[in-house]
């Protein structure tokens, strides 16, 4: 599997728009969209948890070339908290209940648009990394917090 490309992010944006999927880029991929210079491997999407949104998401993913069995599609429609896809044209993590964020609607109210990509606010990205309390997130938090200061001053996109 090759690295995630800008073209593929555009394909997500287009397919998700066609199917009216409610989602936000989150995690380091979201921070990179905001302008954070760092490296990551996968795209992380925070997806609103509802049957309707799950059904739209399944259609969009299939359109993008992800192979989903009936059982896997049912997982997504039901809205498991976390789904990891490596069965399509690129790797994708679907997060339905990220640590540190109570509800999708709260994150949506705070979100920013970067070139048409819906992205979690930097404070939500930081909050989810703090709450996940992983070694790799703990290491990246000081630099991410500094980026937050920079981003708030300049509002990059």
């Amino acid at each position, binding site marked *: 599997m090759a690295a995630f490309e800008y073209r593929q992010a555009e394909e997500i944006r287009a397919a998700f728009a066609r199917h009216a999927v409610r989602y936000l880029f989150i995690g380091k991929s979201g921070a990179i969209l905001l302008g954070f210079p760092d490296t990551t491997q996968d795209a992380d999407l925070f997806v609103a948890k509802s049957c309707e949104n799950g059904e739209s998401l399944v259609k969009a993913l299939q359109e993008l070339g992800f192979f989903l069995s009936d059982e*896997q599609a049912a997982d997504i429609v039901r809205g498991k908290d976390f789904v990891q896809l490596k069965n399509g044209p690129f790797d994708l993590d679907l997060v339905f209940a990220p640590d540190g964020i109570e509800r999708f609607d709260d994150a949506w109210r705070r979100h920013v648009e970067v070139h048409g990509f819906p992205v979690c606010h930097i404070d939500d990205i930081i909050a989810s990394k703090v709450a996940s309390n992983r070694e790799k997130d703990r290491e990246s938090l000081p*630099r991410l917090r500094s980026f937050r200061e920079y981003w*708030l001053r300049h509002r990059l996109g």
Partner: protein
Amino acid sequence: MSGDSSQEPGFSDSAAIPADWLAEFEAAARRPLEQRFRYSFIKTYKPVLDDAPYRAFDTMEEYRQWCEENLPDWLGYGRVRVPTG
């Protein structure tokens, strides 16, 4: 951009940005988004994590536990433990 900044959780605005990080942020800000993507998204093999085409977890707690029990420590997916006693 959209969004309601009045909803932002409270973080201090007073933190100073180290000079080397500031230089990196400013350099990144000058790059087009497509170029930032090329510089940021990389692919290296992650043992165990990359060995299945699909995984799903009912809860984030279940996912975190799976990571701790199945992934090598050096990948960094384990949670930070606070020493007791």
